[in-house]
């Protein structure tokens, strides 16, 4: 067992050398690494946000709002479809709890025709990558008693809409953060309805959060000149076709607006921060696309002298009076902005609206100094642990302790090599995992050496004792490592963020230690046996 064939020796040493080369870039600052020759590996271990400082923000998309908006659209489409088909109807209503729009057809003769017309509103589900649900539609159109027709959102339809909403939210967030000019954000989908946004080393998290939290839905609406805003605000009952909207001021000012929007933010093609030519105060300028410009020109022509409101996310930003028709398709918003606010608003408008509100449900921010402290603390803990364990091993096993220490060092190197190669992220718990591995990984050698001691005591020759020690300890080593691996895998499977980092390093560390403590140390011991041909085992 102790005889190693040449190819095995080459293979083992090869793994060790490649490991050292792969781990090497982590020792140097990144500038030096860039200057290394091309044939050397350049990958360094990524540091987690808890080590380099940064923000981790988890958002949940508001599914109810998405459903409500969709039902609102369906209601509009039903109205349009029945009107086109010249079918009389009553009781067109939305039941959000049942994800349903229902309508009653006035005349029983029209029922089939109406059903056909409304059935066309249901669109087939795009199968895309999830080919399983075949032939489904996003709406169930059904006839009920009393000449009623219901349109219900299907689960598959909702899933498809959620997927679309998540994807477009990610795009929008990316545009906003890019416009803000920060370094490499990572924006990922998590689960069915969540988005994880991470940016390293950012100072002004609060402002960036402001950019993500706003839906960014812009509307231009007419102020109803007939209504008294104060009275409506007191009674909370706006006249039919109107709605009550407050301004973003403190205290909020109520406005009564026409429900239908003149032009919406979807028609915007550009938006930039600027300064008002006369007053010098910060403003946001915007430009419509051609259809938006035409509409805006027409409504401003028709309503000269009346106030209209610029509404962002259901808050009135400003409500200027239309002094003259705006024909050029561009305009400006002023509303007592600071320069920063004007800048952020321009980014919001430019990047388009989010499909639904994003609610932050988890947020972790680490300052750069705490990250640096953690790295320093982790480093010293690791070095001290390494030295303490190494000294103890020599005390316990003499020369063989040195062999184990060599294996331990190689193990540490291999862990870093593996982390660099697979592009894993090193977190503070990850460092804890490495330190723990330093303590645990000598276990295999302890098992082997204790075994060798027993074999020596039972009177075996050095060679036979060592051989038996290695081979008999093997089953125990595997058993004992498997149990730790099981709980590590569970941690990896269920853990998130930093805890997962712990599971990764612990798992890699244990796997590497099986190689170093068993194969590598056995090879070293076999070299030593061949060179010295000892009469007794110094253990």
């Amino acid at each position, binding site marked *: 067992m102790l005889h190693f064939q040449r190819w095995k020796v080459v293979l083992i040493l090869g793994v060790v050398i490649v490991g050292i080369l792969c781990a090497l870039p982590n020792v140097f600052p990144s500038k030096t690494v860039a200057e290394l020759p091309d044939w050397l590996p350049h990958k360094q271990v990524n540091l987690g946000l*808890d080590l380099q400082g940064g923000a981790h923000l988890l958002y*949940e998309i508001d599914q109810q709002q998405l459903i409500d908006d969709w039902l609102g659209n369906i209601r509009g489409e039903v109205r349009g479809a029945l009107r086109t088909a010249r079918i009389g109807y009553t009781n067109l209503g939305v039941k959000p709890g049942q994800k349903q729009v229902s309508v009653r057809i006035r005349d029983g003769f029209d029922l089939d025709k109406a059903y056909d017309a409304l059935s066309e509103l249901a669109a087939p589900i795009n199968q895309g990558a999830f080919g399983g649900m075949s032939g489904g539609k996003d709406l169930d159109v059904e006839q009920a008693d009393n000449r009623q027709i219901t349109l219900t959102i299907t689960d598959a339809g909702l899933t498809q809409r959620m997927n679309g909403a998540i994807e477009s939210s990610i795009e929008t967030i990316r545009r906003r953060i890019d416009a803000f000019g920060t370094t490499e954000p990572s924006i990922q989908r998590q689960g069915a309805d969540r988005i994880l946004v991470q940016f390293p080393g950012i100072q002004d*998290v*609060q402002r960036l959060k402001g950019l993500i939290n706003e839906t960014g839905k812009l509307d231009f609406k007419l102020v109803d000149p007939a209504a008294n805003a104060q009275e409506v605000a007191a009674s909370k009952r706006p006249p039919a076709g109107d709605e009550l909207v407050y301004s973003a001021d403190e205290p909020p000012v109520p406005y009564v607006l026409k429900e239908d929007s003149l032009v919406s933010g979807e028609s915007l093609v550009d938006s930039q921060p600027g300064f008002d030519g006369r007053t010098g105060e910060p403003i946001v300028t915007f430009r419509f696309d051609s259809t938006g410009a035409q509409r805006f020109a027409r409504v401003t022509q028709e309503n000269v002298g009346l106030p209209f409101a610029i509404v962002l996310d259901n808050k009135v930003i400003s409500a200027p009076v239309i002094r003259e028709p705006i024909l050029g398709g561009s305009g400006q918003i002023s509303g007592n902005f600071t320069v920063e606010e004007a800048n952020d608003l321009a980014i919001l408008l430019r990047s388009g609206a989010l499909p639904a509100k994003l*609610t*932050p449900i*988890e*947020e*972790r*921010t680490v*300052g750069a*100094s*705490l990250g640096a402290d*953690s790295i320093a*603390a*982790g480093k*010293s*803990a*690791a070095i*001290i*642990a390494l030295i*303490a*364990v190494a000294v*103890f091993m020599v*005390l*316990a096993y*003499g*020369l*063989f*302790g040195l062999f184990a220490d060599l294996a331990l060092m190689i193990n540490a190197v291999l862990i870093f090599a593996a982390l660099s190669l697979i592009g894993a992220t090193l977190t*503070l*718990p990850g*460092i*804890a995992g490495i*330190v*723990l591995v330093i*303590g*645990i990984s*000598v*276990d295999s050698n*302890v098992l082997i050496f*204790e075994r060798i001691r027993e074999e020596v*005591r039972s009177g075996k020759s050095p060679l036979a004792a060592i051989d038996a020690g290695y081979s008999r300890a*093997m*089953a*125990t080593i595997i*058993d*004992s490592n*498997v*149990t*730790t691996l*099981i*709980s590590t895998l569970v*941690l990896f499977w*269920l*853990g998130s963020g*930093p*805890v997962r980092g712990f599971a990764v390093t612990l798992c890699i560390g244990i796997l590497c230690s099986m190689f170093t403590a068993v194969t590598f140390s056995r090879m070293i011991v076999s070299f030593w046996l061949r060179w010295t041909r000892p009469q007794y085992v*110094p*253990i």
Partner: protein
Amino acid sequence: MFRGFSFVPPNTKIDFIGMRGISFFVSALVMVLSLVAAQVYGLNFGIDFKGGTLIEISTKAPQADLATLRSTLNDLDLGEVQIQQFGEPNDVLIRIGEQDSEGAQQATVGKVKEALGDQVAEYRRIETVGATISTELIYMGTIAVVVAMGAILLYVWFRFEWQFAVAAIAALTHDVVSAIGLFCIFQLEFNLAALAAILTIIGYSLNDTVVVFDRIRENLRKYRKLPMADLIDLSINETLSRTTLTHFTTFLAVLALYLFGGKVIENFNIAMLWGIVVGAYSSIFVASPLLLVLGMRRDWGATATTKRAKSGSPVGV
């Protein structure tokens, strides 16, 4: 040449099985105390599991004035606010309970920042966890512990006999419950890192239970006439040196982490240190004697040999 020092002398013969009356009593007492502590004090859940906001600041003043900070923050009317010094004298940890709505939760950090104003040199860490996430994390944590225990039970059952598996799980439960008891008694914050420690303990503590079991099985084959109690004692004594040594090296490593690894993962380290000690105890004093109680059979060694021979595994002779 230096041979190394045998920390546990060879031929050590400690009558562990003979002590099982005392050790079962001690173990039971620890379990009962832990459960009582869990009932009376309860776990001091961190924001990961309870929701809320955690803010770590360093103040401009070299010595943070906790009383002033406390009264400033209490004026904000944010409900439960805990303030504690953390590491350096000017380092302060602020914990704020969960607010009624996600909106209020979001506003909390802004309010605190405004109130503290320029007393703060740096916001070192800000964490806000909403109710959705904390409920999920509790659920996930429970599942993780159950799944890990279940998987280990299956593994031990597969590798040994069911009695071994039951004894191992009893030892594990002992370790986990006592670790939770420790957190309850000292009201240490139980957060994600502490949960990770509990899961690691589950894997690690079992590690040497399995090593002792391996030896018991081997000795069952070797000594056909030895009474069971003596056989278990012999097995524990034979592996005692290994058990103490590996636990000691792991303890050393985690101790280094505890002393020099910073405050952020302190509770992870405390839980691990406890788990390492109690893990060694439980494999010797709980799992192995329990095997005797559950009834061992002489023919296990034999079956194991035939199993091995059939599968052609290169292990053992």
